[in-house]
């Protein structure tokens, strides 16, 4: 007999494949394939941004972190929303006004396009691929766990997720990706809202009873019973480096979100800058409501299900599904699992889309072929092939790493690169007349290398494991970490800016300064901006 989870998975897959078929007939031409014809409405794009952004890490991961480490987990929730103020105030409108398909478009106006696009494509591919591998490993482990009664293994799960994301992107382009993200966001909001109501009803809709229970969370640690107030900070971030780690995490979130390529490309799907602004506000309404509700998901799991039970029934990531099971039985458990599955698919589809767009538009057309398609439709064809290749690589690496691999650092790495390499050059390009190509290449390179280097030397990859830890779960470098923080932002972001500024000051490029007015006028008024493509 098939489990309710599997049924709901299959229904979701059927609906999204139908959407992909519908979208594939409308995705002819580059504007349609890469930017959904720039016809997505403001609210639709806002919902899609939310669906693109809220990953399995934020749904299952955050519920788990709050369930196990209380208040400190909620700090992620706060940063993930507040970060959108950077997107809203600084990035979304100039990007829509001045760009076409990728973040490199904005840089290429005043700077020498080939070196800048090559570096920007490298940075985009790094962020997207690392983030995607983290999602795939998580997805495989999770789907295998959620569907273990149906006999689906890690390999099958990873391959299934990978093939679906390739199908959405290759055949349906940005339009299919958008609708998969919209449906996922609506499902996620509905599921989270229901779960929150159920948690509150468990406490007879008394917030004070709920928070009292959060004040006395009971569990066992090393055989001892512990009673802990989960609203108190400090369960995850402890001295000596806890405070710095929190600030560094905050920096990575606040500056990284506005440099995540799969979020940036979404602003090209709307007709103009005003709609881009409206879509950020819609996204903030959804994302904020969702992260406030993580209070009920996380603390609910801690008080109603309990750490002890979750630890022996799949671990931290199962906190939200187990809470659903405890409150409303197996059908609701299946529904929440299906939402988790939809969540993963929507995010990996967005990542595949942004990676393949950057490869085709920045690297293939503009770096290798100097801005000209040799044949009509070549850019889209290359993007489709790139989506297939990127997807295949992600499937292979996720299978090679296996379900126990330590991949959480890849998410931190993606945010660090986005904050330290992408954001500084976008901001300086938009606001600093003196900025030039050397500065952009230096900023991207320094930000990228600093992020990767510091994470290699961090406790995420450097630690001495006891012999009981085996295989992929072991740390890569068996030695004491050289850099004490898991989030390198506090050092790598200033280094990225420094690289960009020093590179600029060491060179002269009058043409970049001459063309600053063009970018200034374009980004602020939308004069000459890309317009919607005609309906097919």
């Amino acid at each position, binding site marked *: 007999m098939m489990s309710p989870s599997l049924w709901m998975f299959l229904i979701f897959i059927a609906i999204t494949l139908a959407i992909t078929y519908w979208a594939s007939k409308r995705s002819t031409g580059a504007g349609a394939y890469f930017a959904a014809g720039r016809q997505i409405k403001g609210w639709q794009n806002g919902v899609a941004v939310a669906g693109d952004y809220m990953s399995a890490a934020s749904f299952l991961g955050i519920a788990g972190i709050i369930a196990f480490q209380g*208040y400190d987990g*909620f*700090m992620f*929730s*706060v*940063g993930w*929303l*507040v970060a*959108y*103020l*950077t997107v*809203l*105030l*600084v990035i979304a409108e100039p990007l829509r006004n001045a760009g076409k398909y990728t973040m490199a478009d904005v840089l290429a106006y005043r700077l020498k396009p080939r070196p800048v696009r090559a570096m920007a494509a490298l940075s985009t591919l790094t962020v997207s691929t690392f983030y995607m591998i983290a999602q795939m490993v998580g997805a495989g482990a999770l789907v295998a766990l959620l569907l273990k009664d149906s006999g689906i293994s890690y390999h099958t799960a990873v391959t299934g997720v990978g093939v679906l994301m390739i199908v959405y992107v290759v055949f349906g382009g940005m339009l299919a990706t958008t609708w998969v993200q919209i449906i996922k966001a609506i499902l996620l909001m509905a599921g989270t809202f229901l779960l929150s109501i159920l948690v509150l009803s468990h406490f007879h809709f008394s917030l*004070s009873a709920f*928070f*009292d229970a*959060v*004040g006395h969370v009971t569990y066992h640690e090393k055989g001892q019973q512990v009673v802990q*107030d989960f*609203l*108190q*900070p*400090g369960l995850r*971030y402890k001295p000596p480096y*806890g*405070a*710095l780690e*929190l*600030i560094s*995490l*905050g920096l990575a979130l*606040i500056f990284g979100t506005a440099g995540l390529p799969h979020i940036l490309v979404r602003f090209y799907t709307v007709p103009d800058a*005003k709609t881009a*602004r*409206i879509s*950020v*506000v819609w996204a*903030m*309404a959804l994302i*904020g409501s969702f*992260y*406030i509700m993580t209070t009920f998901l996380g603390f609910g799991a801690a008080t109603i299900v309990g750490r002890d039970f979750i630890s022996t029934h799949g671990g931290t990531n199962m906190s939200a599904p187990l809470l659903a099971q405890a409150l409303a039985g197996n059908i609701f458990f299946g529904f929440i699992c299906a939402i988790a599955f939809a969540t993963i698919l929507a995010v990996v589809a967005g990542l595949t889309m942004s990676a393949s767009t950057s490869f085709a538009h920045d690297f293939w057309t503009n770096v290798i072929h100097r801005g000209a398609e040799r044949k009509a439709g070549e850019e889209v064809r290359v993007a489709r092939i790139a989506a297939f290749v990127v997807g295949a690589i992600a499937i292979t690496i996720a299978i090679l790493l296996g379900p126990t691999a330590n991949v959480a650092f890849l998410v931190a790495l993606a945010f660090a690169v986005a904050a330290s390499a992408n954001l500084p050059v976008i901001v300086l390009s938009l606001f600093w007349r003196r900025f030039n190509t050397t500065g952009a290449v230096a900023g991207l390179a320094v930000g990228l290398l600093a992020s990767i280097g510091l994470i290699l030397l961090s406790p995420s990859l450097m630690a001495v494991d006891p012999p009981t830890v085996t295989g992929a779960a072991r740390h890569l470098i068996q030695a004491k970490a050289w850099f004490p923080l898991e989030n390198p932002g506090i050092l790598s972001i200033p280094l990225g800016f420094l690289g960009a500024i020093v590179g600029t000051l060491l060179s002269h490029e009058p043409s970049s300064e*001459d*063309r600053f*007015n*063009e970018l*200034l*006028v*374009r980004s*602020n*008024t*939308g*004069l*000459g*901006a*890309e*317009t919607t493509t005609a309906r097919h």
Partner: protein
Amino acid sequence: MPEIPSGETHLSVWDRVAASPEFKNLIARKKRFIVPAFIFFLVYYFLLPILVGYAPALMARKVWGNVNIAYLFALSQFFMAWIIAGLYVRAGSDFDKRSKNIVDQALKPRDAEGNTKP
């Protein structure tokens, strides 16, 4: 893509618009909103990890039942973000009107001296 009027190069359009008082006014107005809003949100947001990290005793103080300052301060961040977003949308409709005027002006046909044709 709007047609840039013939008879002048792209560059001259951008430089002319950039030098116009309307455009300078738009940039000044945008700065007047965005710079203070951005600084305010950075300060307000980073106070949270700084206080949680360096003043845990203050943050642990309970103000309503078991609810402490740390949680309320974290919760207030959501409303801070929404309020700034709301204020920005209100300010934005003015920016939109001004940029539309600038674009309309820039797209008017011009003679060789750069004056708009009657």
